Protein backbone atom coordinates (compact mmCIF):
# COMPACT_ATOMS: atom_id res chain seq x y z
CA UNK A 1 0.00 0.00 0.00
CA UNK A 2 1.42 3.44 -0.86
CA UNK A 3 2.60 5.36 2.17
CA UNK A 4 2.95 9.05 2.86
CA UNK A 5 4.43 11.20 5.62
CA UNK A 6 2.36 13.90 7.26
CA UNK A 7 4.06 16.34 9.61
CA UNK A 8 2.08 18.32 12.15
CA UNK A 9 4.09 21.51 12.34
CA UNK A 10 2.66 22.78 15.65
CA UNK A 11 3.88 19.73 17.59
CA UNK A 12 6.77 18.87 15.23
CA UNK A 13 5.72 15.26 14.87
CA UNK A 14 5.58 13.16 11.73
CA UNK A 15 3.46 10.09 11.05
CA UNK A 16 3.92 7.48 8.31
CA UNK A 17 0.41 6.77 7.06
CA UNK A 18 -1.29 4.70 4.37
CA UNK A 19 -2.10 7.01 1.45
CA UNK A 20 -5.78 7.97 1.38
CA UNK A 21 -6.18 8.62 5.13
CA UNK A 22 -7.98 11.80 6.05
CA UNK A 23 -5.96 14.25 8.14
CA UNK A 24 -8.56 14.03 10.93
CA UNK A 25 -7.84 10.33 11.40
CA UNK A 26 -4.22 11.09 12.26
CA UNK A 27 -4.27 14.48 13.95
CA UNK A 28 -6.64 13.47 16.73
CA UNK A 29 -4.72 10.31 17.55
CA UNK A 30 -1.41 12.09 17.73
CA UNK A 31 -2.86 15.02 19.67
CA UNK A 32 -2.05 17.74 17.15
CA UNK A 33 -3.57 21.18 17.64
CA UNK A 34 -6.13 21.10 14.81
CA UNK A 35 -9.56 21.17 16.43
CA UNK A 36 -12.82 19.79 15.16
CA UNK A 37 -16.44 20.80 15.29
CA UNK A 38 -18.98 19.01 13.10
CA UNK A 39 -16.43 16.62 11.54
CA UNK A 40 -18.43 16.57 8.33
CA UNK A 41 -17.15 19.52 6.37
CA UNK A 42 -19.80 22.03 7.32
CA UNK A 43 -18.60 24.28 10.17
CA UNK A 44 -15.05 25.19 9.15
CA UNK A 45 -13.66 24.70 12.67
CA UNK A 46 -10.92 22.32 11.50
CA UNK A 47 -9.40 24.72 9.00
CA UNK A 48 -5.68 24.03 8.66
CA UNK A 49 -2.83 25.61 6.78
CA UNK A 50 -0.93 23.35 4.42
CA UNK A 51 2.67 24.46 4.89
CA UNK A 52 4.19 22.02 2.41
CA UNK A 53 2.83 19.48 -0.06
CA UNK A 54 -0.34 21.33 -1.07
CA UNK A 55 -0.61 19.15 -4.17
CA UNK A 56 -0.27 15.98 -2.12
CA UNK A 57 -3.75 16.31 -0.64
CA UNK A 58 -6.98 15.30 -2.39
CA UNK A 59 -8.73 18.05 -4.38
CA UNK A 60 -11.30 19.97 -2.31
CA UNK A 61 -14.92 19.21 -3.17
CA UNK A 62 -17.31 21.96 -4.27
CA UNK A 63 -18.86 21.89 -0.79
CA UNK A 64 -15.48 22.18 0.94
CA UNK A 65 -14.56 25.10 -1.30
CA UNK A 66 -17.79 26.84 -0.32
CA UNK A 67 -17.14 26.34 3.41
CA UNK A 68 -13.58 27.61 2.96
CA UNK A 69 -14.89 30.72 1.21
CA UNK A 70 -17.53 31.33 3.89
CA UNK A 71 -14.83 31.15 6.55
CA UNK A 72 -12.53 33.53 4.70
CA UNK A 73 -9.91 30.88 4.09
CA UNK A 74 -6.52 31.96 2.86
CA UNK A 75 -4.63 30.31 0.04
CA UNK A 76 -3.47 26.82 1.09
CA UNK A 77 -6.13 26.45 3.78
CA UNK A 78 -8.05 23.18 3.85
CA UNK A 79 -10.50 21.38 6.12
CA UNK A 80 -8.71 18.65 8.03
CA UNK A 81 -11.87 16.54 8.24
CA UNK A 82 -12.10 16.41 4.45
CA UNK A 83 -8.57 16.43 3.03
CA UNK A 84 -7.08 13.02 2.23
CA UNK A 85 -3.34 12.50 2.41
CA UNK A 86 -1.99 11.31 -0.95
CA UNK A 87 1.70 12.15 -0.50
CA UNK A 88 4.11 13.88 1.90
CA UNK A 89 2.81 17.08 3.43
CA UNK A 90 3.16 19.39 6.41
CA UNK A 91 0.17 21.04 8.10
CA UNK A 92 -0.66 23.21 11.10
CA UNK A 93 -3.80 24.80 12.58
CA UNK A 94 -4.95 27.80 10.49
Amino acid at each position, binding site marked *: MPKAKITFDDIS*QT*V*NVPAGCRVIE*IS*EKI*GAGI*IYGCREGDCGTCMMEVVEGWNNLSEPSVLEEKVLR*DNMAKRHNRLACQAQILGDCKVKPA
Partner: protein
Amino acid sequence: MSRLANDPAQSARGLAQGSPGAIPITAGVHWIGALDPQLRTFDIILRTANGTTYNSYLVRGDQGVAVIDTVKLEFADDFFRRLESVADYAEIRAIVLNHLEPDHSGALPELMRRAPQARLYISTRATSMLKAVLKPKESDRPFEYQTVGTGDEVSLGSRTLRFLHTPFLHWPDTQCTYLVEDAVLFSGDVFGCHYCDARLFNDLVGDFRFSFDYYYAHIMRPFKEHVVEALKLIEPLPLKIVAPTHGPILRERPRRYVTHYRELSTSSLTERIGNEALSLIVFYMSAYGSTARMAECIAAGAEETPGVRVSLYDLEGGETGPFVDLIEEADALAFGSPTINGDAVKPVWDLLSSLAVVNLKGKLGAAFGSYGWSGEAVRMIEDRMRGLKMRVPVAGLRLKLIPTDEELAECRDFGRRLASALVGGEQGRVIDFADLG
Protein backbone atom coordinates in the same frame (compact mmCIF):
# COMPACT_ATOMS: atom_id res chain seq x y z
CA MET B 1 -40.69 68.38 15.65
CA SER B 2 -40.86 67.26 19.25
CA ARG B 3 -39.51 63.75 18.66
CA LEU B 4 -35.92 64.81 19.36
CA ALA B 5 -36.73 67.22 22.15
CA ASN B 6 -38.36 64.83 24.63
CA ASP B 7 -37.27 65.17 28.23
CA PRO B 8 -35.32 61.97 28.99
CA ALA B 9 -36.35 61.86 32.65
CA GLN B 10 -40.00 62.31 31.80
CA SER B 11 -39.82 59.65 29.12
CA ALA B 12 -38.10 57.24 31.48
CA ARG B 13 -40.92 57.69 33.98
CA GLY B 14 -43.37 57.27 31.13
CA LEU B 15 -41.77 54.01 30.12
CA ALA B 16 -41.96 52.75 33.68
CA GLN B 17 -45.72 53.36 33.56
CA GLY B 18 -46.00 51.27 30.41
CA SER B 19 -45.69 54.00 27.79
CA PRO B 20 -45.26 52.48 24.34
CA GLY B 21 -43.12 55.32 22.98
CA ALA B 22 -39.44 55.53 22.10
CA ILE B 23 -37.06 56.82 24.76
CA PRO B 24 -34.49 59.47 23.80
CA ILE B 25 -31.02 58.59 25.05
CA THR B 26 -29.14 61.53 23.54
CA ALA B 27 -29.77 64.03 20.76
CA GLY B 28 -30.85 62.12 17.65
CA VAL B 29 -30.76 58.70 19.30
CA HIS B 30 -33.74 56.75 20.68
CA TRP B 31 -34.17 53.45 22.45
CA ILE B 32 -36.84 51.47 20.58
CA GLY B 33 -36.39 48.09 22.26
CA ALA B 34 -38.61 45.88 24.39
CA LEU B 35 -38.89 44.82 28.01
CA ASP B 36 -39.24 41.14 28.95
CA PRO B 37 -39.73 41.21 32.74
CA GLN B 38 -41.26 37.71 32.90
CA LEU B 39 -38.27 35.82 31.48
CA ARG B 40 -36.64 33.54 34.08
CA THR B 41 -34.20 31.54 31.98
CA PHE B 42 -32.28 32.79 28.96
CA ASP B 43 -30.80 30.45 26.35
CA ILE B 44 -31.15 27.51 28.78
CA ILE B 45 -27.89 28.47 30.53
CA LEU B 46 -28.68 31.77 32.26
CA ARG B 47 -31.08 32.49 35.11
CA THR B 48 -32.78 35.85 34.79
CA ALA B 49 -34.28 36.73 38.15
CA ASN B 50 -35.99 39.91 36.94
CA GLY B 51 -36.14 39.28 33.22
CA THR B 52 -34.22 41.05 30.49
CA THR B 53 -34.50 43.75 27.86
CA TYR B 54 -33.91 43.58 24.12
CA ASN B 55 -32.40 46.95 23.34
CA SER B 56 -32.55 48.38 19.88
CA TYR B 57 -31.77 51.90 18.86
CA LEU B 58 -32.71 54.42 16.24
CA VAL B 59 -30.19 57.03 15.07
CA ARG B 60 -31.33 60.04 13.07
CA GLY B 61 -29.02 62.00 10.79
CA ASP B 62 -30.02 64.81 8.46
CA GLN B 63 -29.88 62.38 5.54
CA GLY B 64 -31.70 59.42 6.97
CA VAL B 65 -32.27 57.07 9.84
CA ALA B 66 -30.47 53.95 11.00
CA VAL B 67 -31.92 51.15 13.12
CA ILE B 68 -29.38 49.28 15.21
CA ASP B 69 -30.44 45.76 16.19
CA THR B 70 -34.02 44.55 16.55
CA VAL B 71 -35.75 42.42 19.19
CA LYS B 72 -36.91 38.87 19.84
CA LEU B 73 -39.79 37.94 17.54
CA GLU B 74 -42.42 37.83 20.31
CA PHE B 75 -41.68 41.48 21.11
CA ALA B 76 -41.78 42.76 17.53
CA ASP B 77 -45.03 44.68 18.13
CA ASP B 78 -43.43 46.74 20.95
CA PHE B 79 -40.41 47.40 18.74
CA PHE B 80 -42.40 48.56 15.71
CA ARG B 81 -44.70 50.71 17.85
CA ARG B 82 -41.72 52.49 19.39
CA LEU B 83 -39.99 52.83 16.04
CA GLU B 84 -43.13 54.34 14.47
CA SER B 85 -43.32 56.91 17.29
CA VAL B 86 -40.07 58.53 16.08
CA ALA B 87 -39.60 57.68 12.39
CA ASP B 88 -41.33 56.61 9.20
CA TYR B 89 -40.18 53.39 7.57
CA ALA B 90 -39.39 55.30 4.36
CA GLU B 91 -36.74 57.29 6.25
CA ILE B 92 -34.71 54.22 7.20
CA ARG B 93 -31.52 54.05 5.19
CA ALA B 94 -29.53 51.59 7.23
CA ILE B 95 -30.26 48.59 9.41
CA VAL B 96 -27.32 47.37 11.48
CA LEU B 97 -27.25 43.95 13.14
CA ASN B 98 -24.36 43.76 15.60
CA HIS B 99 -24.85 40.02 15.66
CA LEU B 100 -27.54 37.76 14.30
CA GLU B 101 -28.69 35.89 17.40
CA PRO B 102 -32.48 35.46 17.28
CA ASP B 103 -33.16 37.71 20.29
CA HIS B 104 -31.84 40.61 18.21
CA SER B 105 -32.76 39.52 14.70
CA GLY B 106 -36.30 38.30 15.44
CA ALA B 107 -37.98 41.39 13.99
CA LEU B 108 -35.45 41.80 11.17
CA PRO B 109 -37.38 40.05 8.36
CA GLU B 110 -40.50 42.14 9.02
CA LEU B 111 -38.45 45.33 9.35
CA MET B 112 -36.85 44.60 5.97
CA ARG B 113 -40.30 44.09 4.49
CA ARG B 114 -41.51 47.41 5.89
CA ALA B 115 -38.35 49.31 4.89
CA PRO B 116 -37.36 47.66 1.60
CA GLN B 117 -35.11 50.57 0.62
CA ALA B 118 -32.92 50.14 3.70
CA ARG B 119 -29.56 48.48 3.37
CA LEU B 120 -28.57 45.86 5.94
CA TYR B 121 -25.07 46.10 7.43
CA ILE B 122 -23.60 43.01 9.08
CA SER B 123 -20.09 41.89 9.95
CA THR B 124 -17.93 40.02 7.51
CA ARG B 125 -18.46 36.85 9.54
CA ALA B 126 -22.25 37.04 9.48
CA THR B 127 -22.96 36.06 5.89
CA SER B 128 -23.26 32.34 6.48
CA MET B 129 -25.66 32.93 9.37
CA LEU B 130 -27.88 35.44 7.62
CA LYS B 131 -29.70 32.95 5.42
CA ALA B 132 -30.08 30.55 8.33
CA VAL B 133 -31.66 33.31 10.41
CA LEU B 134 -33.89 34.83 7.74
CA LYS B 135 -34.88 31.51 6.14
CA PRO B 136 -36.00 33.26 2.94
CA LYS B 137 -38.58 31.54 0.76
CA GLU B 138 -37.90 31.25 -2.95
CA SER B 139 -40.74 33.69 -3.58
CA ASP B 140 -39.21 36.35 -1.29
CA ARG B 141 -37.51 39.35 -2.78
CA PRO B 142 -33.73 38.80 -2.47
CA PHE B 143 -32.48 40.85 0.46
CA GLU B 144 -29.59 43.20 0.03
CA TYR B 145 -26.87 43.46 2.57
CA GLN B 146 -23.36 44.74 2.92
CA THR B 147 -20.63 43.24 5.06
CA VAL B 148 -18.49 45.68 7.02
CA GLY B 149 -15.30 45.50 9.07
CA THR B 150 -13.31 47.68 11.46
CA GLY B 151 -13.15 51.27 10.26
CA ASP B 152 -15.94 51.00 7.69
CA GLU B 153 -18.46 53.80 7.98
CA VAL B 154 -22.06 54.57 7.05
CA SER B 155 -22.98 58.23 6.78
CA LEU B 156 -26.39 59.52 7.75
CA GLY B 157 -25.32 63.04 6.76
CA SER B 158 -24.89 64.77 10.09
CA ARG B 159 -24.14 61.50 11.90
CA THR B 160 -21.71 58.72 11.11
CA LEU B 161 -21.74 55.07 12.15
CA ARG B 162 -18.35 53.41 12.32
CA PHE B 163 -17.95 49.66 12.76
CA LEU B 164 -15.62 47.71 15.02
CA HIS B 165 -15.06 44.03 14.21
CA THR B 166 -15.18 42.25 17.58
CA PRO B 167 -15.63 38.57 16.70
CA PHE B 168 -16.69 35.96 19.28
CA LEU B 169 -18.22 38.41 21.73
CA HIS B 170 -20.09 36.14 22.00
CA TRP B 171 -21.00 35.03 18.47
CA PRO B 172 -18.47 34.65 15.67
CA ASP B 173 -20.12 37.49 13.77
CA THR B 174 -20.23 40.04 16.59
CA GLN B 175 -19.42 43.66 15.82
CA CYS B 176 -19.90 46.95 17.67
CA THR B 177 -21.17 50.15 16.07
CA TYR B 178 -19.86 53.54 17.13
CA LEU B 179 -21.73 56.77 16.62
CA VAL B 180 -18.79 59.05 15.97
CA GLU B 181 -20.28 62.53 16.53
CA ASP B 182 -21.99 61.66 19.83
CA ALA B 183 -19.47 59.12 21.21
CA VAL B 184 -22.13 56.44 21.65
CA LEU B 185 -21.00 52.83 21.42
CA PHE B 186 -23.75 50.41 20.38
CA SER B 187 -21.92 47.46 21.80
CA GLY B 188 -24.22 44.52 21.07
CA ASP B 189 -24.07 41.94 23.84
CA VAL B 190 -20.74 43.32 25.05
CA PHE B 191 -21.26 45.27 28.32
CA GLY B 192 -24.80 43.88 28.46
CA CYS B 193 -26.63 41.98 31.16
CA HIS B 194 -29.98 40.37 31.76
CA TYR B 195 -31.63 42.94 33.97
CA CYS B 196 -35.05 44.38 33.27
CA ASP B 197 -35.82 47.80 34.67
CA ALA B 198 -38.07 50.21 32.82
CA ARG B 199 -36.02 53.16 34.11
CA LEU B 200 -33.49 51.95 31.53
CA PHE B 201 -30.41 54.03 32.41
CA ASN B 202 -27.64 52.86 34.73
CA ASP B 203 -28.01 55.93 36.97
CA LEU B 204 -31.74 55.26 37.44
CA VAL B 205 -32.16 51.49 37.65
CA GLY B 206 -31.67 49.24 40.68
CA ASP B 207 -28.46 47.43 41.61
CA PHE B 208 -27.47 45.40 38.54
CA ARG B 209 -23.83 44.76 39.43
CA PHE B 210 -24.43 41.08 40.07
CA SER B 211 -26.29 40.70 36.78
CA PHE B 212 -23.45 42.41 34.90
CA ASP B 213 -20.79 40.09 36.35
CA TYR B 214 -23.01 37.01 36.01
CA TYR B 215 -23.60 37.79 32.35
CA TYR B 216 -19.88 38.24 31.75
CA ALA B 217 -19.09 34.96 33.55
CA HIS B 218 -21.43 32.95 31.36
CA ILE B 219 -21.39 34.75 28.04
CA MET B 220 -18.01 36.44 27.64
CA ARG B 221 -15.68 34.40 29.86
CA PRO B 222 -15.18 31.59 27.32
CA PHE B 223 -13.89 34.23 24.90
CA LYS B 224 -11.52 36.17 27.17
CA GLU B 225 -8.77 36.38 24.58
CA HIS B 226 -11.25 37.89 22.12
CA VAL B 227 -12.50 40.31 24.79
CA VAL B 228 -8.93 41.55 25.19
CA GLU B 229 -8.64 42.06 21.42
CA ALA B 230 -11.96 43.93 21.31
CA LEU B 231 -10.93 46.15 24.22
CA LYS B 232 -7.93 47.32 22.18
CA LEU B 233 -10.45 48.79 19.71
CA ILE B 234 -12.88 50.11 22.33
CA GLU B 235 -10.58 51.60 24.98
CA PRO B 236 -9.17 54.41 22.79
CA LEU B 237 -12.67 55.67 21.86
CA PRO B 238 -14.21 58.74 23.50
CA LEU B 239 -17.28 57.30 25.26
CA LYS B 240 -20.28 59.27 26.46
CA ILE B 241 -22.74 56.37 26.36
CA VAL B 242 -22.39 52.62 26.02
CA ALA B 243 -25.63 51.19 24.68
CA PRO B 244 -25.71 47.38 24.85
CA THR B 245 -28.43 45.05 23.55
CA HIS B 246 -29.44 43.78 27.02
CA GLY B 247 -29.85 45.57 30.32
CA PRO B 248 -29.21 49.15 31.38
CA ILE B 249 -27.87 51.80 29.03
CA LEU B 250 -24.57 52.93 30.53
CA ARG B 251 -24.53 56.73 30.45
CA GLU B 252 -23.08 57.47 33.90
CA ARG B 253 -19.35 56.79 33.90
CA PRO B 254 -19.49 54.37 30.96
CA ARG B 255 -15.75 53.88 30.97
CA ARG B 256 -15.79 52.07 34.30
CA TYR B 257 -17.61 49.19 32.60
CA VAL B 258 -14.88 49.02 29.99
CA THR B 259 -12.29 49.00 32.77
CA HIS B 260 -14.25 46.29 34.56
CA TYR B 261 -14.20 44.13 31.41
CA ARG B 262 -10.44 44.56 31.30
CA GLU B 263 -10.21 43.39 34.93
CA LEU B 264 -12.55 40.44 34.36
CA SER B 265 -10.55 39.35 31.33
CA THR B 266 -7.24 39.39 33.16
CA SER B 267 -6.21 36.12 34.72
CA SER B 268 -6.51 36.63 38.48
CA LEU B 269 -5.04 33.27 39.45
CA THR B 270 -1.88 33.68 37.39
CA GLU B 271 -1.32 37.15 38.76
CA ARG B 272 -1.56 35.91 42.31
CA ILE B 273 0.80 32.99 41.82
CA GLY B 274 3.19 34.79 39.50
CA ASN B 275 4.50 31.46 38.34
CA GLU B 276 6.16 30.98 34.98
CA ALA B 277 6.00 27.18 35.12
CA LEU B 278 3.50 25.22 33.06
CA SER B 279 0.69 23.89 35.19
CA LEU B 280 -0.53 20.29 35.12
CA ILE B 281 -3.50 19.42 37.29
CA VAL B 282 -4.29 15.80 38.10
CA PHE B 283 -7.90 15.22 39.16
CA TYR B 284 -9.11 11.83 40.31
CA MET B 285 -11.88 9.87 41.98
CA SER B 286 -11.15 6.55 43.56
CA ALA B 287 -13.37 3.86 45.10
CA TYR B 288 -10.75 1.56 46.67
CA GLY B 289 -7.64 3.69 46.35
CA SER B 290 -6.24 2.20 43.13
CA THR B 291 -6.96 5.17 40.88
CA ALA B 292 -5.72 7.43 43.71
CA ARG B 293 -2.38 5.58 43.77
CA MET B 294 -2.15 5.88 40.00
CA ALA B 295 -2.80 9.64 40.31
CA GLU B 296 -0.04 10.05 42.91
CA CYS B 297 2.49 8.20 40.75
CA ILE B 298 1.51 10.09 37.59
CA ALA B 299 1.91 13.37 39.49
CA ALA B 300 5.28 12.24 40.87
CA GLY B 301 6.49 11.25 37.40
CA ALA B 302 5.39 14.55 35.89
CA GLU B 303 7.08 16.50 38.70
CA GLU B 304 10.45 15.20 37.52
CA THR B 305 10.23 17.40 34.44
CA PRO B 306 11.71 20.86 35.06
CA GLY B 307 9.31 23.69 34.30
CA VAL B 308 6.16 21.71 35.08
CA ARG B 309 4.20 22.44 38.24
CA VAL B 310 1.87 19.62 39.23
CA SER B 311 -1.22 19.81 41.46
CA LEU B 312 -3.15 16.79 42.67
CA TYR B 313 -6.84 17.02 43.54
CA ASP B 314 -9.32 14.43 44.76
CA LEU B 315 -12.64 15.42 43.17
CA GLU B 316 -14.45 14.09 46.21
CA GLY B 317 -12.97 16.90 48.30
CA GLY B 318 -13.82 19.90 46.14
CA GLU B 319 -16.54 21.80 44.39
CA THR B 320 -17.01 22.41 40.71
CA GLY B 321 -16.71 26.23 40.70
CA PRO B 322 -13.16 26.56 42.05
CA PHE B 323 -12.05 23.56 39.97
CA VAL B 324 -13.33 25.31 36.84
CA ASP B 325 -11.23 28.36 37.81
CA LEU B 326 -8.16 26.15 38.22
CA ILE B 327 -8.79 24.42 34.90
CA GLU B 328 -9.07 27.75 33.10
CA GLU B 329 -5.56 28.64 34.22
CA ALA B 330 -3.99 25.21 33.73
CA ASP B 331 -1.93 24.11 30.74
CA ALA B 332 -2.63 20.40 31.06
CA LEU B 333 -5.25 18.28 32.80
CA ALA B 334 -5.28 14.61 33.70
CA PHE B 335 -8.49 12.94 34.83
CA GLY B 336 -8.51 9.65 36.70
CA SER B 337 -11.70 7.65 37.07
CA PRO B 338 -12.52 4.08 37.90
CA THR B 339 -15.02 2.40 35.60
CA ILE B 340 -18.32 1.63 37.31
CA ASN B 341 -21.04 -0.07 35.28
CA GLY B 342 -19.22 0.73 32.05
CA ASP B 343 -18.91 4.45 32.67
CA ALA B 344 -16.69 7.07 34.27
CA VAL B 345 -18.03 8.20 37.64
CA LYS B 346 -20.46 11.09 38.01
CA PRO B 347 -18.15 13.64 39.72
CA VAL B 348 -15.84 13.40 36.70
CA TRP B 349 -18.70 14.00 34.29
CA ASP B 350 -20.03 16.79 36.50
CA LEU B 351 -16.75 18.63 36.13
CA LEU B 352 -16.30 17.78 32.45
CA SER B 353 -19.80 19.09 31.73
CA SER B 354 -19.18 22.38 33.54
CA LEU B 355 -16.43 23.67 31.29
CA ALA B 356 -18.45 25.49 28.63
CA VAL B 357 -17.63 28.77 30.38
CA VAL B 358 -13.87 28.49 29.89
CA ASN B 359 -11.65 28.20 26.86
CA LEU B 360 -9.88 24.84 26.75
CA LYS B 361 -8.61 25.00 23.21
CA GLY B 362 -5.08 23.68 22.95
CA LYS B 363 -4.73 22.55 26.55
CA LEU B 364 -3.33 19.05 26.93
CA GLY B 365 -5.51 16.32 28.36
CA ALA B 366 -4.92 12.80 29.60
CA ALA B 367 -7.02 10.09 31.22
CA PHE B 368 -6.27 7.15 33.46
CA GLY B 369 -8.01 4.79 35.82
CA SER B 370 -8.22 1.43 37.48
CA TYR B 371 -11.02 -0.91 36.47
CA GLY B 372 -12.48 -4.30 37.34
CA TRP B 373 -13.98 -5.71 34.15
CA SER B 374 -14.02 -3.53 31.09
CA GLY B 375 -12.43 -0.10 31.77
CA GLU B 376 -14.45 2.06 29.38
CA ALA B 377 -14.03 5.23 31.47
CA VAL B 378 -10.59 6.18 30.18
CA ARG B 379 -11.57 6.18 26.48
CA MET B 380 -14.79 8.04 27.25
CA ILE B 381 -12.91 10.77 29.11
CA GLU B 382 -10.41 11.05 26.26
CA ASP B 383 -13.25 11.46 23.75
CA ARG B 384 -14.84 14.11 25.94
CA MET B 385 -11.57 16.04 26.18
CA ARG B 386 -11.14 15.93 22.40
CA GLY B 387 -14.72 17.15 22.12
CA LEU B 388 -13.73 20.06 24.33
CA LYS B 389 -10.99 20.85 21.79
CA MET B 390 -8.14 19.68 24.00
CA ARG B 391 -5.13 17.80 22.67
CA VAL B 392 -4.64 14.27 23.97
CA PRO B 393 -0.95 13.61 23.30
CA VAL B 394 -0.47 10.43 25.37
CA ALA B 395 -2.82 7.46 25.04
CA GLY B 396 -4.78 6.83 28.24
CA LEU B 397 -3.57 4.44 30.93
CA ARG B 398 -5.86 1.70 32.24
CA LEU B 399 -4.90 -0.79 34.96
CA LYS B 400 -6.91 -3.76 36.16
CA LEU B 401 -7.83 -3.50 39.86
CA ILE B 402 -4.90 -3.18 42.31
CA PRO B 403 -1.77 -1.74 40.67
CA THR B 404 1.48 -3.68 41.05
CA ASP B 405 4.85 -1.99 41.57
CA GLU B 406 5.58 -2.44 37.86
CA GLU B 407 2.27 -0.85 36.97
CA LEU B 408 2.92 2.06 39.29
CA ALA B 409 6.24 2.55 37.52
CA GLU B 410 4.22 2.64 34.31
CA CYS B 411 2.13 5.41 35.88
CA ARG B 412 5.24 7.43 36.68
CA ASP B 413 6.35 7.00 33.07
CA PHE B 414 2.91 8.11 31.90
CA GLY B 415 3.31 11.27 33.99
CA ARG B 416 6.78 11.84 32.56
CA ARG B 417 5.51 11.49 28.98
CA LEU B 418 2.61 13.85 29.62
CA ALA B 419 4.94 16.43 31.16
CA SER B 420 7.37 15.94 28.29
CA ALA B 421 4.61 16.64 25.76
CA LEU B 422 3.71 19.72 27.77
CA VAL B 423 7.20 21.20 27.53
CA GLY B 424 7.53 20.16 23.87
CA GLY B 425 9.93 17.28 24.48
CA GLU B 426 8.12 14.96 22.07
CA GLN B 427 9.00 17.15 19.11
CA GLY B 428 10.77 15.69 16.13
CA ARG B 429 9.39 12.17 16.62
CA VAL B 430 8.43 10.06 13.60
CA ILE B 431 5.61 7.66 14.38
CA ASP B 432 4.12 4.85 12.37
CA PHE B 433 0.37 4.83 11.79
CA ALA B 434 0.12 1.32 13.26
CA ASP B 435 1.54 2.55 16.58
CA LEU B 436 -1.11 5.21 17.04
CA GLY B 437 -3.59 2.69 18.46
